[in-house]
């Protein structure tokens, strides 16, 4: 216990140090104009061959790398899993700060990308004429790889949100599947009354979930213009979410089980966690982690704030970016393009990933796929529709990785004490703003 706590403190220190170092480094190394690469340059790099290192944890990339190497035998791709999410970002920041061991391509989640983009740690892909991919990707992820004027990655997957629910549990208690958040709260009460062991969902404070919910509710708590940042959780969208979710917390209607833990997987299997409002990448995890739920789960559109509405939000999802410190950028871009916009996208979709390209999202093969896990439902129809209905205009902070890491110290309190969710968000806002100022941003 103590060991673990100490370890996490040091991990946090390491991360903080790396961030500071990265911020320091970025000040001086701004070279202004970027090298330009034409399509011929990229093709020349493929013909010449070479080795590139890719840092990614996405499992379907393994097949993509194999196919890519087969197509271009002179190219060798070293696929390295350098950690998932923030662990990889810490490693990446460390490598960038140290100036060695930086990969040629890195998987970065959309929420973390602004941080790397603003520090100029990632290449602006406009130097590869990546703007011609306008329309290739669905709007949500395509917006997410933009920061300011630049394009700092190509979208690899996306997570338009939907309601995953355990149909067996709803049928057993004769409760209708909610289509609005009011109905969701009513269903939460009905389920928990019918069987005290059953909760509508589990939540112990998850920054990604909370921000996505505010996103869907039309809130825009983060406004970013270069280094000018505004954080404000008092807007209408944020309030809408906190008011509704506060009821569920106060009435103890959400299960106090940490997401992604073994109990969580257990709850999804035995029916004690009845729904998940989560990104479209979830089916692969349900299939591999919750074998006990096979045939019981279904997918429905995300509950709405207004009956008949169609608003959704993105939850998770990531793209491939090219670090500025990488050695072979032309080859790195060739792989990035292959994996995200070309054959790789199809391969990955076949492997169970949720695509970000409009071509895959509208292909009949994709839409008509029947999932035995979801009782034969054509789940992709619901998920692809959700991708089209993502609310526009959302942005993350240029220091969102740090902000998310302190979410549980502030908002997390609302789940375990009398602190109100809205007060928790206020504390989060203040702590985030303070950090932003320390990093040299003009906040609020």
């Amino acid at each position: 216990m103590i060991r673990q706590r100490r370890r996490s403190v040091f991990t946090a220190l390491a991360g903080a140090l790396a961030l500071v170092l990265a911020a320091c480094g970025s000040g001086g190394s701004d070279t202004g104009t970027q090298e330009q690469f034409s399509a011929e340059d990229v093709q020349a790099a493929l013909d010449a061959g070479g080795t590139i290192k890719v840092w990614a944890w996405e499992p379907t990339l393994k097949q993509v790398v194999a196919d890519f190497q087969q197509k271009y035998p002179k190219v060798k791709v070293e696929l390295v899993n350098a950690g998932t999410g923030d662990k990889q970002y810490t490693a990446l920041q460390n490598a960038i700060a140290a100036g060695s061991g930086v990969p040629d391509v890195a998987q970065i989640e959309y929420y973390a990308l602004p941080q790397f983009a603003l520090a100029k740690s990632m290449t602006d892909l406009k130097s590869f004429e990546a703007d011609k991919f306008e329309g290739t990707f669905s709007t949500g992820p395509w917006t997410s790889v933009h920061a300011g004027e630049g394009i700092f990655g190509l979208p690899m997957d996306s997570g338009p949100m939907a309601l995953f629910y355990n149909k067996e549990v709803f049928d057993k208690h004769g409760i209708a599947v909610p289509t609005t958040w009011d109905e969701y709260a009513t269903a939460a009460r009905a389920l928990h009354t019918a069987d005290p062991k059953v909760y509508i969902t589990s939540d112990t404070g998850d920054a990604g979930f909370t921000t996505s919910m505010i996103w869907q509710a039309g809130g825009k708590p983060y406004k970013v213009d270069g280094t000018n940042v505004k954080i404000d959780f008092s807007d209408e969208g944020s309030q809408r979410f906190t008011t509704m979710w506060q009821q569920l917390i106060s009435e103890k209607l959400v299960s106090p089980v940490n997401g992604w833990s073994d109990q969580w997987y257990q709850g999804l299997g035995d029916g004690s966690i009845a729904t998940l409002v989560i990104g479209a990448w979830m089916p692969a995890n349900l299939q591999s982690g919750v074998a006990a739920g096979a045939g019981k789960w279904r997918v429905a559109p995300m509950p709405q704030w207004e009956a008949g509405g169609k608003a959704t939000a993105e939850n998770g999802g990531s793209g491939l970016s090219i670090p500025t410190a990488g050695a072979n950028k032309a080859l790195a871009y060739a792989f990035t393009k292959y994996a995200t916009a070309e054959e790789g996208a199809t391969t990955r979709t076949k492997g169970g990933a949720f695509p970000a390209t409009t071509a895959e999202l509208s292909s009949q093969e994709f839409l008509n796929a029947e999932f035995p896990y979801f009782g034969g439902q054509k789940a992709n129809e619901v998920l692809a529709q959700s991708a089209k209905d993502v609310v526009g205009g959302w942005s993350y902070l240029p220091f969102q990785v740090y902000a998310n890491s302190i979410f549980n110290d502030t908002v997390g309190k609302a789940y375990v004490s009398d602190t109100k969710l809205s007060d928790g968000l206020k504390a989060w806002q203040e702590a985030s703003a303070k950090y932003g100022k320390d990093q040299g941003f003009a906040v609020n």
Partner: protein
Amino acid sequence: MTAPTGTRTTGTRPARLRTVRPRVAPLRPAGRTSKPRRSVLLTVLTGIVVLYSLVPLLWLVINATKTQPSLLSSFGLWFDGDFALWDNIQRTLTYNDGIFVRWLSNTLFYVVLGAGGATLLSAVGGYGLAKFNFPGKRGVFAVVIGAVAVPGTALAVPTFLMFSQMGLTNTPWAVVIPSLISPFGLYLMWTFAAEAIPDELLEAARLDGAGEFRIFFRVCLPLLAPGLVTVLLFTSVATWNNYFLPLIMLKDPDWYPLTVGLNAWNAQAITAGGDVVFNLVITGSLLTIVPLIAAFLLLQRYWQSGLAAGGVKG
């Protein structure tokens, strides 16, 4: 003023003697020499500690016999469903093209080179500090004592930045070289050498014309054996369990030790589209601790005597 104190002291002394003597004086009958008196409180406390350390181990053994689905649907501290231990072990060893075996051999490599090297360095250094006088010895002592107090984790990030400038990160040396340094081992060997090697022996050897290296390797090293085993166990356990240093130094899974590798498997459960393999993580953890338990059981005697020697002098 003097009188009362005088009486009090004379009064207490015999009393103290009296209370001490009965415990020592009535010698226990021969044959049952070392039967310690039982204390209920101590027994209960020890029992709690034993439970505290054994229950997780028991949990690990029990759950290594379960399949991934029954792992999630059954009570943690009892067996359930099919007995899948052999199947789990087989899958652990072959999952991801048998990367577990690679991690195991990496760990062994780090332990042999890192812990072995650390032990040798500690022995040489400790012997030198114990048996030779040179200016600055007190300074060295202060530095070593200070270094014992600094946890290796705190130095990991600075070490990383230094190593990456030297181009050593993401190579096995980034794990081996820091493992070579064991201030505690050096201190232990120092106190042990001071006690175990009589100065007269060294003088006799020198008179006989033996060189310093010969004296160290042929005369002193055998005398240091119990201390060596203790330090070897200490450093082996530290290197075997080392997590944070390899975590930040290594990015290539081919060089991971078991600790970092198993954590990577565990992290698959929090990855979108990841393969959830809790059962393999558990079985892998069990396989990881088996060599440590074996080493402890085999070398327990040395471990105890070495610890005691260090304790008396320390």
